[in-house]
């Protein structure tokens, strides 16, 4: 049956195309309204400003705190300490301070506002192609394949590439999915709340220069404020000096606490750069020799100097998400399936969308809901009626119950994962689009039910947000025979049930 599924999927993708008809789910509004920029429909949890030029994480409160701390401390320094120091010592002090301050602000804003190296999510065609490849690879290994990983040998080290269920791609090496921003980021270092953004391939050097220059600035201010107070206290005494320049006290306190953390962080990142590791890898101990004798970092260039140059002075890759580009209205990537049974014949590129697990699960749920409605109405369970069905094959009841139970069992057992931005994958869409007499959807389920069997296991990590209560999961498991009895009850002539019957007949014919 599994082979039949992949065969029919292949049929979907490579056969003749027929014309597309409009459906309720299609969104023609894009063609009518003026062109939107891509950032406006960005799937991650980022905030955009200045028409897409600025990109930040969702939580920016701590970033404003950072800004306030730096601006207030430097402001107080320039206003209260610099005049005295410029006169008593040298005017170079405020100049150097000013240069350092500008450098710190420049690098901070660069780090916070730039794209860290977000990988755009796969298009529907790509995702379908990958699914197909994985299907083929796992064809004979059983009902539930292992988590999707690919192994690659890089410079003699075996690296595992994981599949990202949110972005529907195999993550490149060193990439990681940030659960706060809900994006896969290349060469992911960490998510820094102080700068209000992820730190990745594209902004790591800005981040490093920021913390390095901030260390110098902090030490600079700390040293010269202390000097200021000492010089004043030589003249007027210590307490008077403090009274004359109260701002200095605040500056000293802020700088004192900052120095330890910022300088420590700079030192840590200097070590990371010289060994060409990311914070992520260091924390996990990916390349630590403790893991194994032959474990080494395959990305390192061998010497510290080259590693530093590569990290800080290497080429800066451009942003892959093209946030200021315009959305092309001619790519109907989200086009849903059209009419039902005829789909077998009218195979088209849309089949690849139609075979999308969203539609499959939605349709499966529709069938299950349809099935349980008579269950609530009629209490009689007459297994005798089942004898009419085995004309197609005596294994029908068993197989159907297995099929129907399959998607159900995956729902409550879904493993918790970091929050994804696609909770609407199945349930929410299903409830919105399940009209009682929905012919369009009733037609849909016949084909995708087969895919539902093959694909339901892929949904497990993403099924978490869907409340299992939405589907009467318990009942089909316990009352599968009852359900089938009601299906084949000729008394119910509701179109809903006719279509459910049709669906199950198709299922049995596989």
């Amino acid at each position, binding site marked *: 049956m599994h082979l039949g599924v992949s065969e029919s999927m292949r049929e979907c*993708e*490579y056969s*003749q*195309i*027929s*014309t*597309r008809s409009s459906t309720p789910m299609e969104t023609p509004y894009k063609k009518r309204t003026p062109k939107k920029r891509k950032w406006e429909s960005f799937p991650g949890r980022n905030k955009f400003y200045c028409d897409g030029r600025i990109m930040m994480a969702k939580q920016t409160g701590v970033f404003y705190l950072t800004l306030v701390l730096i601006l207030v401390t430097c402001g107080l320094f320039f206003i209260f300490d610099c005049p005295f120091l410029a006169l008593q010592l040298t005017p170079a002090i405020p100049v150097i301070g000013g240069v350092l301050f*500008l*450098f710190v602000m*420049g*690098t901070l804003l*660069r780090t916070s506002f730039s794209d860290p190296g977000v*990988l*755009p999510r*796969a*298009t529907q*065609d*790509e995702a379908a*192609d*990958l699914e197909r490849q994985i299907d083929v690879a796992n064809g004979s290994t059983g009902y539930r394949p292992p988590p999707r990983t690919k192994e*690659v*040998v*890089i*410079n003699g080290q075996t*690296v595992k*590439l994981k599949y990202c269920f949110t972005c529907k*791609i*195999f993550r*490149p*090496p*060193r990439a990681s999915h940030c659960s706060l921003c809900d994006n896969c980021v*290349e*060469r992911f270092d960490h998510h820094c709340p102080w700068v209000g953004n992820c730190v990745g391939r594209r902004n790591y*050097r*800005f981040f490093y*220069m920021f913390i390095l220059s901030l260390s110098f600035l902090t030490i600079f201010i700390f040293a010269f404020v202390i000097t200021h107070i000492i010089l004043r206290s030589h003249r007027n005494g210590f307490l008077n000096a403090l009274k004359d320049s109260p701002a200095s006290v605040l500056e000293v306190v802020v700088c004192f606490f900052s120095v330890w953390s910022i300088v420590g962080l700079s030192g840590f990142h200097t070590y990371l750069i010289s060994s060409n590791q990311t914070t992520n890898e260091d924390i996990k101990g990916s390349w630590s020799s403790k893991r194994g004798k032959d474990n080494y970092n*395959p*990305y390192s260039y061998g010497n510290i100097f*080259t590693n530093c*140059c*590569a990290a*800080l*002075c*290497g*080429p*800066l*890759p*451009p942003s*892959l*998400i*093209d946030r200021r580009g315009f959305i092309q209205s*001619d790519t*109907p990537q989200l086009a849903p399936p059209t009419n039902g049974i005829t789909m077998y014949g009218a195979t088209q*590129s849309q089949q690849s969308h139609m075979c999308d697990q969203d539609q499959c699960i939605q349709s499966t749920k529709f069938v299950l809901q349809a099935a349980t409605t008579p269950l609530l109405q009629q209490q009689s369970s007459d297994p005798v009626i089942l004898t009419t069905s085995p004309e197609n094959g005596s294994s029908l009841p068993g197989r159907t119950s297995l099929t129907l139970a399959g998607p159900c069992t995956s729902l409550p057992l879904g493993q918790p994962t970091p929050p994804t931005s696609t909770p609407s994958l199945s349930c929410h869409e299903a409830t919105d689009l399940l009209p009682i007499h929905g012919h369009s959807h009733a037609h849909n389920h016949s084909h995708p039910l087969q895919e539902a069997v093959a694909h339901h296991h892929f949904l497990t990590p993403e099924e978490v947000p869907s409340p299992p209560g939405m589907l009467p999961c318990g009942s089909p498991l316990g009352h599968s025979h009852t359900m089938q009895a009601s299906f084949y009850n000729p008394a119910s002539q509701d179109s809903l049930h006719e279509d459910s019957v049709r669906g199950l007949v198709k299922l049995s014919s596989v």
Partner: protein
Amino acid sequence: MRQQAAIAAKVFIQRDYTNGTVCQFQTKFPSELETRIDKQQFEETVRMLNNLYAEAEKLGSQSYIEGCLACLTAYAIFLCIETHYEKVLKKIAKYIQEQNDKIYAPRGLLLTDPIERGLRVIEVTIFEDRSLTR
């Protein structure tokens, strides 16, 4: 609509990570293209693209000078000039356009610039044989 009607299939050439995180694509010839294009020709295209991407990401004197200069100006210089990488990307776009016009379009194929797919894949769209409009 007519263009949609003509697409028969899409083939995706995935990234090749055996040399690390450098942008390289697999040169393995996909079976779906066997009837459409010469294997050598296709592999030549992919190899050329790989060379161009390697040039973009090369750690050479030019990238070092650019990096140091940018650092000295607190990276403000990136607001004004085009980086080396961006220049090479333009070269790549031109190359793909040229390949499409000369070699792939007459065979009913279309290469999509990988940058439009986030440098994840080279998307090859296969059009149906009998369609003349694109």
